[in-house]
């Protein structure tokens, strides 16, 4: 990976020689990010000939699988965004609460999807914690035994449990970003002004703040939709089984020993890509419609107090979802520490820390590798993202070409990696740290860039111009003014990128050849087994790395935000 800027040698906004670096930035980014993407996409297309599509079309119930996937993705995204907005509106005028909510949300973002799914499944299943706490009230006692009711929870045929699971996991993600965004656009002042004009706070938030921060949230929301379309780990635990969603079918086909069926799996993965693009395009169309219809309404004073009521209701629901997420994680903690926890005991019959400590000792090398292979991509991604953003600031035309950056978020990872496997093997790069870092970088970079993009672009440029006029060099002004102003968004972006890197599982299996054992591969392997206690312990260990990252990021004060609060 020569030619790649190292962690320290980028020089945005600098004398002529360095400006050339900025002009080259898009090309550098392309050179770093394109090979895995192009290779993966080309490989995926090549492995799915026409016969594969025919085989896929003949799969029983495939139409319903597709419909379910779309339904789940759309519903989960809309609900997550609406609830996140409602909570953000609720705390918008209270910086302390906003800060606490944001921290809680970030902790939940750190929890791995699969772990939350397992925790939630145990929470809502008829044999799960909620029903156990309800106890004899719910269980019928046939032949002296407590029998759970036979309810379709989780895994109902309409994917409602899966939608709930996705909302529990994605709502905190959007909430954290929404709170961060509204702090940056000065929501509190806007709300104060609106309220002085007689608007209820919730109405003012949705009509004044929401349109301002929507551009910052558009891409994260799209990422949530695409994740909902492609999720396998959550769908296996919470999703319907007759038939399962498209992503689950795609993966099981992709790993079929019969090459023809494996090709049909590649076709199914490409179909997911098509669906993702279609979802995003219809999202953009919907956005245009809303904007056209809503533009003039912004100037009108609301007559009916429906919005505040609806918003408060949604906020209540949202807080319930947050509570569910916390409970799901707490359930995992209980499982990890339980010696014996059998139905219908509401709490474990005994505790044992031996499994957790033993596992932590066993997994220490894997944890170190996980940290390394998530940190290295972040160390490349953050400077690269800054370089790209500075370059775009100089010449906005350069921003046009940034679309492909998000491709890894749109492509189902299994298809992308299956396509990449061939070229990597031919180059002899499989099993090398380089290939793994590169693959992780392809996924980590869009998250980092996404997390950083809007807040960086919207950072007040006046102090920096002032520093320049006072004689500072471009780079000097950047380090003296821009860096302190953006250090918190930078840290959060790095933490998000780190958590995305830690969660990566398939690259280690398919490109790493299993030669580099990571925490994620160990946790997924354990989750495939019978023992929920071991699975919970592994998942908790997996969650600790990103949680540490977010904790560090949240300790960094936000000078930009604090100045506005005063």
């Amino acid at each position, binding site marked *: 990976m020569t030619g790649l800027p190292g962690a320290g040698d980028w020089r945005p906004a600098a004398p002529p020689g360095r400006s050339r670096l900025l002009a080259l930035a898009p090309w550098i980014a392309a050179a770093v990010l394109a090979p895995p993407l192009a290779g993966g996409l080309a490989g995926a297309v090549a492995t799915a000939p026409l016969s594969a599509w025919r085989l896929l079309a003949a799969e029983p119930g495939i139409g319903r699988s597709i419909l379910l996937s779309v339904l789940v993705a759309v519903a989960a995204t809309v609900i997550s965004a609406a609830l996140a907005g409602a909570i953000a509106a609720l705390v918008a005028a209270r910086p302390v609460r906003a800060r606490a909510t944001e921290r809680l949300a970030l902790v939940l973002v750190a929890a791995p999807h699969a772990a939350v799914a397992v925790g939630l499944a145990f929470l809502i299943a008829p044999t799960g914690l909620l029903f156990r706490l309800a106890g004899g009230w719910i269980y019928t006692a046939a032949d002296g035994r407590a029998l759970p009711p*036979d309810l379709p929870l989780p895994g109902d045929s309409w994917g409602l449990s899966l939608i709930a699971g996705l909302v529990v996991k994605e709502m905190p993600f959007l909430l954290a970003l929404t709170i961060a965004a509204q702090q940056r656009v000065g929501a509190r002042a806007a709300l104060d002004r609106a309220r002085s004009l007689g608007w209820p706070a919730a109405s003012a938030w949705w009509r004044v703040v929401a349109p301002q921060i929507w551009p910052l949230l558009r891409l994260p929301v799209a990422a949530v939709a695409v994740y909902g379309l492609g999720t396998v780990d959550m769908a296996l635990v919470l999703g319907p089984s007759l038939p399962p969603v498209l992503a689950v079918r795609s993966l099981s086909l992709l790993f079929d020993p019969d090459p023809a069926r494996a090709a049909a799996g590649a076709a199914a993965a490409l179909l997911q890509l098509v669906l993702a693009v279609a979802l995003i395009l219809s999202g953009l169309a919907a956005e245009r419609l809303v904007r056209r219809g809503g533009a003039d309404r912004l100037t009108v004073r609301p007559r009916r107090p429906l919005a505040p009521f609806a918003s408060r209701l949604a906020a209540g629901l949202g807080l319930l979802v947050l509570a569910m997420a916390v409970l799901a994680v707490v359930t995992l903690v209980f499982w990890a520490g339980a010696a014996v926890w*059998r139905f219908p005991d509401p709490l474990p019959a005994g505790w044992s820390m031996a499994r957790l400590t033993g596992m932590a000792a066993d997994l220490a090398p894997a944890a170190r590798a996980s940290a390394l292979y998530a940190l290295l991509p972040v160390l490349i991604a953050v400077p690269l993202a800054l370089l790209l953003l500075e370059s775009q600031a100089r010449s906005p035309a350069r921003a046009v070409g940034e679309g492909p950056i998000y491709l890894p978020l749109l492509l189902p990872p299994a298809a992308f990696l299956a396509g990449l496997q061939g070229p990597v093997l031919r180059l002899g790069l499989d099993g090398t740290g380089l290939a793994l870092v590169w693959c992780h970088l392809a996924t980590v970079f869009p998250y980092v860039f996404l997390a950083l993009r809007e807040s960086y672009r919207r950072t007040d440029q006046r102090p920096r111009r002032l520093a320049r006029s006072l004689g500072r060099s471009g780079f000097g002004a950047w380090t003296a003014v821009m860096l302190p102003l953006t250090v918190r968004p930078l840290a959060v972006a790095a933490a998000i990128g780190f958590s995305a890197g830690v969660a990566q599982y398939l690259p280690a299996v398919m490109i790493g050849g299993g030669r580099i054992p990571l925490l994620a591969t160990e946790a997924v392997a354990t989750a495939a087994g019978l023992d929920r206690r071991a699975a919970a312990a592994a998942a908790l260990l997996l969650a600790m790395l990103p949680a540490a990252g977010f904790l560090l990021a949240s300790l960094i004060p936000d000078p930009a935000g604090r100045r506005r609060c005063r």
Partner: protein
Amino acid sequence: MTLWMRIAGRMALAAALSWGASAQAAGSTATAPQPAPKPQGAQLRAQTDWQAVLDEARGQTVRFNAWGGDPKINEFIERVAAEAEGCCAVIVEQVKLADTAEAVARIKAEAAAGRKTEGGSVDLIWINGENFAALRTADLLWGPMLDRLPDARFIDLGANPALARDGSLPVDGYEVPWGLSQFGLVYDRAVTPDPPRSPAALADWIEAHPGRFTYPAPPDFIGSAFLKQMLIMLLPKDKRPALMRPVDPARAPDLTAPLWAWLDRIRPAMWREGRAFPPNGPALERMQADGAVDLGFAFHPGQAASAIASGLMPASTRVIGWSGGSIANAHFVAIPANADAKAGAMVFANMLISPEIQAAKLDPLIWGDMTVLSAGRLSEEDRAVFRDIDLGPAWPSEEELGPAIPEPHPSWTDWLEAEWSRRYLAG
């Protein structure tokens, strides 16, 4: 150990050592054929051969790709790995897989990229059935090598058809068997004192206990095994031989009609009225441990014992075979053709079939997996090691486990899975 337990243990040991013994003449274990004495020269050559393998293996790192879903099994592999490092300076790293198909796909991709004889990422793989067929038919396994392992002499390939044929294909020395499985029913004796062991009894039981039974959705291998087991039992004896031959698509619908009728009959009384199925075997085990259903399935007679020992299931959990015989198969390790540490992989494979390790593996507290070694080929001392293992009360007796019956021809697995999907998957 009480006398009763000792007797139960002995009976279980007999079952474990003489797998399928009830199909053979009584007492055959005691008079199992001894290996023909080899000429002195051949033995000497075999010894020097093995010494060469040991020398080559010294310092090699073996990447053992193995399903990693059971902490108990992972621990066992780790223990054997530590021993391999101690005795032979072979370092064994378990690459824990969530699904063996991942490693099979990787080996195929490596071969497609031109790495056919070296440079592979897998040195040894835990494998059987369709994954073996996929690698063997593509000529991606290295061998034959079973005869080169000194401890293979304790395995009597003729004692059990599952040892010599893995699915549709003869093993031909390309795989090393290291465990035996037999499909059984897991139940709680305190809840279901008289478990249903035939399709008719099971259907009656399910209708009497609505919502308390389900099976993993095929193509999960436990789910597919359940379909095959029921099909065999539902067919009259004279029609069963058709299952040993490849599927004849013209006759298959007629032949399997009783199975679909039976499945349709139980469906409304199943868990969630048969509108949802657990995705795999461990998921069903978790449901049983949670009390969501009353019956589960096991491929290991020690499964109940180990689930009790680790506090997952009540102490009254038991395993029992199906009346008339249960499907049996073996699981193996194999060396991919492009493995780099072939000698090290052979050394580790040989350790896996050594009497000492096989005996440890039989212990339900360690794993509870049946041995592939034949009692008749073991020394008196080794037999005593096996005899001294406490199999515990949850291990089925020989009568309870019943005889082993061979799997249908593997083409039936694919056909049944596809037909099940056609009938059930669309909802």
